[in-house]
């Protein structure tokens, strides 16, 4: 692309100074570009963002968008998805329970049904609770590109995308060639992780295929966990083991994908695993140049949240939770582009979710869901307007209607976005099964504004502000222990957050850098007492008020690349212990995590890298994101100490 731009520039200059143009030269006018050549940064910014479901670049897409390329990931030395997400404004990693970790987004706990994660188009959230567990999951070297909407995605993606969407494209699905990687993470007292993966793909005009596989082994921490019943060495008593095998083929309009995914984690007492397989097939029928129809079918079968407490036991007992969940889905999408300036997408989907108790051998619940959705993009010289809606209901709730409107435009160096969206979280299988009373869908009103200015071709500053007000918040509760244990879900009336996010990007030929700033706080009127900490009214449990990240990458030579990054997280407050009066909230000190990574292209296609994560040995703990009560409180997971990383990778692109 850079070469083509240069050639065009040369042609332009030649034509400008040539007076004796022939008709043949006139044809050269057809190739001239209306804008000056793209800088390295603009090449990134000007790509269409597929996650926003309209053909617009990130600066004009109807959402607050972050796009991360494989080169950014490789250069940073990121170990897994969480290393990448921590550098994105608004994202935090917290503990749900029993050392299972999830995401916080924009100051709120977003673990259940609030952030939809797609991997090569396959939804990764579990079907029982809509949870996506993280921690040494999705090794960074298996990823080609990540597109993130830091804002509601329900109008397009439905009831699991209330606060955000993370769309991960694997190396195999995103490239044409072969790749292999191996990552080792070492702490001073032992192995932290070991991940490896392979991918192969072939892209043809009519026929393409890809295969992708990775496997990993890691622990949740390398420290000792002090509990009332003793001290546990987390190196040997915890795990974060991912496994993923996926593939796909496409022939003309037909596209078929399959995936098996497994993730094992847990605390010193419990084995917890998420296993699932999925199959997706779709066929695009081009009715004419302007109109296409795409019928889709999808089947997902999972064993999520399998829990046994057999760690260290010689005489295994039955699991304490062993459910199967399935989804059978049929969908039809239509795309109509009547002109260059108008495009419309609409469609309908039916899906049946079913849960089955494998231990009791009985069906638990069936949910029949359907949804209709439509979205129109209207481009005008003054602004692009996106208007859309989704209506979804199932046999147990009365329905959710979520409209959205977005006005965006890039005018020379300046861009703006004005976004309003309603979004929702559809109650999941277990939300209904454990409901105290009739469950209602959780709904949010989200206002967002973004202003951006490109000071030079290499430099962009974007600032956004948001206000999220969520009502009928679906909240988990539990009490008791052993045979007296009782758990439930109920709707709380209100929660939400507001904040400001700043992203400053600078990209030159030899080096690039990024600085982000996040300010996030609670909104007035929160009624979810489980999120409240006594020390402050500005933060929810476990969430920081402010975060600053810094990343600098420098190509020392054509072979050596140096990257350093830093995260500064402000004080957090979380429930850390229990006394006679109940759970106790403590202040978690601010921390600074500083990382360093050196990558070397040893020979063509083969790279080796070494790095250190958490050079300052800050060991940030992973606190629980809510007040779990006397029996449901999990103290913060001790943070990993400094980790030395060695990476080997081979990448052959056709």
């Amino acid at each position, binding site marked *: 692309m850079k070469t083509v731009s240069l050639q065009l520039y040369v042609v*332009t200059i030649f034509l*400008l100074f040539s007076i004796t143009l022939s*008709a043949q030269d*006139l044809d050269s006018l*057809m190739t*001239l570009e*209306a804008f000056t050549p793209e800088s390295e940064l603009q090449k990134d910014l000007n790509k269409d963002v597929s996650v926003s479901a309209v053909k617009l670049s990130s600066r004009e897409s109807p959402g607050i968008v972050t796009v991360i390329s494989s080169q950014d990931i490789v250069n940073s030395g990121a170990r897994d998805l969480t290393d990448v997400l921590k550098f994105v404004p608004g994202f935090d990693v917290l503990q749900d329970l029993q050392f299972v970790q999830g995401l916080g987004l924009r100051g709120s706990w977003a673990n259940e049904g609030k952030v939809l994660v797609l991997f090569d188009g396959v939804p990764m959230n579990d079907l029982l609770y809509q949870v996506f567990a993280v921690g040494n999951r999705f090794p960074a070297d298996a990823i080609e590109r990540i597109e993130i909407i830091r804002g509601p995605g329900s109008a397009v993606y439905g009831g699991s995308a209330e606060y955000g969407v993370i769309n991960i494209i694997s190396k195999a699905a995103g490239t044409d060639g072969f790749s292999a990687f191996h990552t080792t993470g070492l702490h001073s007292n032992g192995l932290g992780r070991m991940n490896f993966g392979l991918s192969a793909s072939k892209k043809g005009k009519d026929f393409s295929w890809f295969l992708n596989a990775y496997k990993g082994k890691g622990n949740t921490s390398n420290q000792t966990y002090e509990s009332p019943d003793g001290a546990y060495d987390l190196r040997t008593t915890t795990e974060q083991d991912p496994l993923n095998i996926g593939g796909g083929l496409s022939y003309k309009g037909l596209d078929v994908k399959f995936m098996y995914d497994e993730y094992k984690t847990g605390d010193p007492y419990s084995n917890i695993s998420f296993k699932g397989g999925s199959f997706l097939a779709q066929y695009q029928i081009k009715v004419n140049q302007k109109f296409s129809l795409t019928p889709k079918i999808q089947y997902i079968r999972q064993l999520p949240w399998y829990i046994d407490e057999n760690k260290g036991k010689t005489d295994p007992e039955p699991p304490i939770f062993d459910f199967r969940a399935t989804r059978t889905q049929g969908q039809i999408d239509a795309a109509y582009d009547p002109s260059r300036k108008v495009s419309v997408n609409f469609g309908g989907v039916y899906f049946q979710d079913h849960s089955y108790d494998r231990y009791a051998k009985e069906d638990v619940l069936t949910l029949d869901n359907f949804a209709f959705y439509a979205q129109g993009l209207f481009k005008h010289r003054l602004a692009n307007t996106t208007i859309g809606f989704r209506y979804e209901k199932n046999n147990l709730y009365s329905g959710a209607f979520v409209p959205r409107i977005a006005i965006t435009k890039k005018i020379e160096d300046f861009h703006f976005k004005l976004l309003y969206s309603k979004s929702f979280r559809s109650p999941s299988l277990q939300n209904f099964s454990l409901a105290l009373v009739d469950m209602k869908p959780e709904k949010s009103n989200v206002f967002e504004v973004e202003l951006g200015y490109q000071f030079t071709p290499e430099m962009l500053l974007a600032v956004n502000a948001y206000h999220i007000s969520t009502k009928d918040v679906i909240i988990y509760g539990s009490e008791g222990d052993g045979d007296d244990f009782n758990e439930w879900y109920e709707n709380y009336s209100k929660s939400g957050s507001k904040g400001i996010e700043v992203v400053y990007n600078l990209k030159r030929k030899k080096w690039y850098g990024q600085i982000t700033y996040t300010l996030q706080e609670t909104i007035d009127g929160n009624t979810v007492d489980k999120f409240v900490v006594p020390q402050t009214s500005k933060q929810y449990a476990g969430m920081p008020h402010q975060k600053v990240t810094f990343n600098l990458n420098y190509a020392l030579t054509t072979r050596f690349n140096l990257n350093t990054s830093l995260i500064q997280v402000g004080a957090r407050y979380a429930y850390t212990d229990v006394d006679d009066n109940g759970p106790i909230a403590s202040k978690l000190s601010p921390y600074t995590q500083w990382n360093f990574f050196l990558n070397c292209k040893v020979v063509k296609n083969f790279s080796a890298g070494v790095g250190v994560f958490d050079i300052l040995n800050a060991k940030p703990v992973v606190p629980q994101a809510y007040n779990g009560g006397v029996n449901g409180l999990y103290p913060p997971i001790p943070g990993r100490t400094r980790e030395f990383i060695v990476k080997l990778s081979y990448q052959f692109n056709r």
Partner: protein
Amino acid sequence: MQIRFLALVFVMTAAYGSHAQTTNYQVYALYVFNIAKYSSWPDLKGEIHITVLGKSKAFDELLKQNGKVVNGNTIKVDQVEAASAIINAQIVYVSDGKSSALDELVKVTEGKPVLIVTEREGLHKRGAGFSFVVVDKNLLRFDINLTDVEKRSIKISKNLSTLANSQI
């Protein structure tokens, strides 16, 4: 500490100057130059006057063509702020900011051999002879209103008109 850090960033950005990927007016000027070259007007007196209506960086680029000779005619470039101020122009280049003055411009030049070229897309449907349009995100092309051009007794070379994105 964080606020001071951000302030530093803002200062850095402000101090960095201003030169961004923007509209490439060189290319717009090149098109106008070729429109002049591949068109013919009745009763030319050795000069082709190109008048830019309103403020546009295309004027700076067109000035670089000032004095060059095309098909035996010398190019003269000037700039005005109002349609009523246009005198003896063969080509009027309407800047984006003066698009609203098109109706008045069409009125005052009605029937005269004046070729109206607009920076803004779609105005060939409202009386301009040429309107620029960006296609495929980045390529500069033009739409042409041959009916209007013929009414003004201006002839456009087929080599040029066949390059149009669309024709009326």
